[in-house]
């Protein structure tokens, strides 16, 4: 019976205008989005390579780092950003040393200067896969399902069908399966075409390690997400008696789940678990640095007053050594203070962000927007990875260069305790993207959540349909 009904619904669905409209939309939007994202990526990649090249030319020696350009670290664009542009235009893409001559530790300042290059893209958002899935496909799922049950109720055809010996479960399953195929076949076809196009143009995916895993996961998540909205549509349609109220209710749900609810989640989390902003902590760190340096300079001042005039005397040399100890002591104090601030910020941010995620995950939209950004290499994990790498690079620079280039104060002037080879090649920053396994682990809960949404919505639709009184 299910098969007969399924074939009937399938024929009906494929013969209808809706299937062709969905097919055309998918075949236009998805390849166009992927192509445009690819072009955007290539432009960013070209800019990144140019920036790295010029920087390498400008900083060939330690001397260039210390006295000319400072050290820079660049974040490369993500080749999988066609999945989701995510935070790529907003997160920092360059870090540079903020170093005052003779005053280690140097701090790596994170900056973003590609957002301004793409002002309109930042303004309107990109046409990436996540947009097509989260907006267009969920919208199509709603359009496809609002009348699935309510329409048949309204037209009276459901009454006729159910007056025969047709099991209700078979009826609903057949309807759901046939309509789901109408939605999924064009989507998967268009996606496959886009990926083939992408590979033909430059072997882009094959060159990225773990790309197929990420794409596979993204497709799974997209299909589950479309399924969740599809089943939500079935549920609302089964609960209502007319098609128009079903459509209005679905529309309001769509706006709430897509537009309003996720946007409020981070604000709610900030209210429940407040956390200082990075800019505030940066200010506090700068203030701490000033205070510590003031204390240190006062102590060195007192020491310098006791030194003899002759800078070559043993007492002066001993004084220089003591000065070094004082500097080290205060630097340790400063670094300890900074670490405590960073740790505190990190702990609070993690807590607040985890809470925001828990709240936001009550909407299936969250479980597609966030994971696709992570899988596209444009999410929080990639940002944290760049931050950690920059911190490590900063440590290397401090250890190998800045801490070996200190000032020593004498009674009548300033000397330099330079233990670094100025003509040596400076350390070079290398970027390693976040590991695919870590990303997959991070998005697995969203896969489970989407599966649960599918089950709950379908079960709800099933129960509502079974309880429908045909009289």
């Amino acid at each position: 019976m299910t098969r007969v009904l399924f074939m009937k619904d399938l024929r009906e669905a494929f013969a209808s205008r809706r299937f062709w409209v969905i097919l055309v939309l998918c075949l236009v939007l998805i390849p166009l989005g992927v192509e445009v994202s690819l072009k955007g990526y290539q432009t960013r990649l070209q800019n990144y390579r140019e920036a790295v090249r010029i920087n390498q030319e400008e900083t060939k020696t330690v001397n260039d780092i210390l006295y000319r350009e400072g050290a820079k670290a660049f974040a490369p664009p993500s080749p999988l950003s066609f999945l989701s542009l995510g935070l790529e235009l907003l997160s920092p893409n360059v870090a540079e040393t903020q170093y005052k001559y003779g005053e280690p530790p140097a701090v790596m300042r994170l900056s973003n200067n590609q957002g301004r290059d793409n002002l309109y893209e930042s303004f309107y958002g990109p046409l990436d896969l996540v947009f097509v899935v989260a907006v267009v496909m969920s919208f199509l799922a709603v359009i496809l399902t609002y009348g699935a049950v309510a329409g048949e109720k309204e037209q009276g055809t459901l009454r006729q069908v159910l007056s025969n010996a047709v099991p209700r479960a078979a009826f609903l399953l057949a309807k759901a399966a046939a309509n789901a195929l109408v939605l999924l076949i064009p989507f998967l076809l268009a996606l496959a075409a886009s990926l083939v196009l992408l590979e033909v143009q430059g072997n882009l995916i094959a060159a990225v390690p773990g790309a197929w895993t990420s794409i596979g996961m993204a497709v799974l998540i997209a299909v589950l997400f479309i399924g969740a909205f599809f089943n939500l549509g079935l549920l609302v349609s089964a609960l209502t008696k007319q098609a128009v109220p079903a459509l209005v209710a679905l529309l309001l749900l769509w706006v709430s789940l897509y537009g309003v609810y996720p946007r409020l989640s981070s604000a709610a989390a900030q209210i429940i678990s407040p956390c200082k902003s990075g800019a505030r902590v940066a200010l506090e760190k700068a203030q701490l640095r000033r205070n510590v340096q003031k204390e240190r300079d006062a102590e060195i001042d007192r020491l310098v007053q006791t030194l003899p005039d002759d800078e070559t005397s043993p007492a002066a040399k001993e004084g220089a050594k003591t000065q070094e100890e004082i500097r080290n002591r205060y630097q340790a104090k400063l670094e300890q203070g900074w670490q405590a601030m960073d740790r505190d910020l990190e702990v609070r941010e993690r807590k607040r962000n985890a809470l925001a995620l828990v709240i936001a995950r009550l909407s299936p939209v969250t479980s597609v927007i966030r994971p696709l950004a992570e899988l596209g290499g444009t999410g929080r994990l990639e940002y944290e990875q760049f931050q950690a790498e920059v911190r490590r690079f900063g440590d290397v620079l401090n250890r190998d260069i800045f801490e070996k280039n200190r000032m020593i104060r004498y009674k009548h002037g300033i000397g330099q305790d330079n233990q670094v080879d100025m003509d040596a090649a400076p350390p070079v920053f290398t970027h390693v993207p976040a590991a695919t396994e870590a990303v997959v682990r991070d998005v697995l809960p969203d896969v489970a959540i989407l599966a649960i949404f599918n089950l709950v919505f379908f079960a709800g639709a099933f129960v509502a349909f079974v309880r429908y009184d045909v009289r």
Partner: protein
Amino acid sequence: MFKTLYKKELLENVQNYRFLLALVICLVVIPLGFVVSQKDYADRRQVYDDAVRADAELRKTVQDFLQNGGLALRPPAVLGLLSAGVETVLPNAVETRGFVTQEGTQIQFNNSRRLDNPFTSLFGRLDLAFITTTVLAVLVMIFAFNAVIGEKERRTLAQVMANAVPRPVVIGAKMAAGSTLLGAAFLVGVLAGVLLTTALGIGPLAEAGTWAPFAIGIAASLVFLMTFFALGLFVSSFSRSSVSAMVALLSCWVALAMVLPKGSVILAKLVRPIKSQQVVELEKSQVRRQYQKDVDDAVEKLAAATPGVKDMSLQDYMKAMRAKAPAISGYAEAQADLRSQFAARLNADLEKIDAAFDEQRAGQAAAARSIARLSPVSCLVHVLTELAGTGFAEDAAWRETRSRYKRIVDRDIASKMDMTRFKNLSYGGAKIDRKAPAPKLPAGPVPLERRLEAAWPDLALLAIYGLLFFTAAYVRFLRYDVR
């Protein structure tokens, strides 16, 4: 007749679920959006104020400025609740880069930022632009989709038309009643939002100069709601059933709110590709380095060609310098002339690079904007963004700020850095009053006139779209065959 029909439409909408739904949504979403935006603004404002205080402490005198570099901070936009726009990618400040020399000051944008809350960036903000173009646009569709077709389906329109009722009055009454109710719900929501934020001490209107842009923003939102309602009436009078009207309206909305604006960026990028700011900055850096090399070579040549100096050892030169020998003064003056010539050339070249880049960017932005203006949704978002001071006028203003800051620092400090070099010796800088107050750049919001200048074409287009949609609905309605 109009009054009767207007009242009838009002009553019909008030009595069914729609008005209540609109009122509840406006009363919940708009105040929530206002509170979230204003709280965020209050936090950022506090950080900005503290940063300004720290900056004033750190850079009291010219000496401090030379030691710590210069900085002019950009305040956060007071009316970010209208539209967050591109504020997150605009520079936080302009600052000097490297040492200030007589060749001129290097000024760059400071775009330093951490991603404090990745979810806000991923999901977007609940500002008025989003609320109006998404949440309220959907409400408008719910109000308008069966305004005409519903009556056709129920055959009530045929009954009305059977009487001596002028058609313009019928469609005019529908338009007026729908706009009134939507406008009322919207204004109640806005009022609740303003009252709530004021009660919480984070009211947007407490700061000077915010009333006018806020009021214009609200008026523009009302015009948008009417425009969208007119579109709804047009689609409703065109459709064969309520359901198809709703689907068509939804499709129009997705196309106008999402696909067309995104498409405008794609097309603009294809038509007018540009370099990145990062690459331009690095190119400028290369130019400076080349100039520095040229200056050094020229100074060496000058020393080698100046009689009385060319054969001097460093020690002889220092002795002569202390004795204020005329040859040394002549050499120093000649070198200062040389340096100022090079500085003029360098600055002209750097300005040329900046101007070329700004022109390219402006070309791409103009292309994107022109295409996006085909959508009334883009028009409203542009108006609100410019009024909020989080848009393209603000970006342009900060490009000018960068040039202005450079002029100030060049005038007050760089031009007085009369450094002279001989072999490994560099000396000078005596003309600078190091105890004088450090140069400051008072940063303020873009004046309202300038924001309006940027916003008025979109505002006018919005009204024109409204008129066009209503005219189309009117014509279609007139041509409706009641039989």
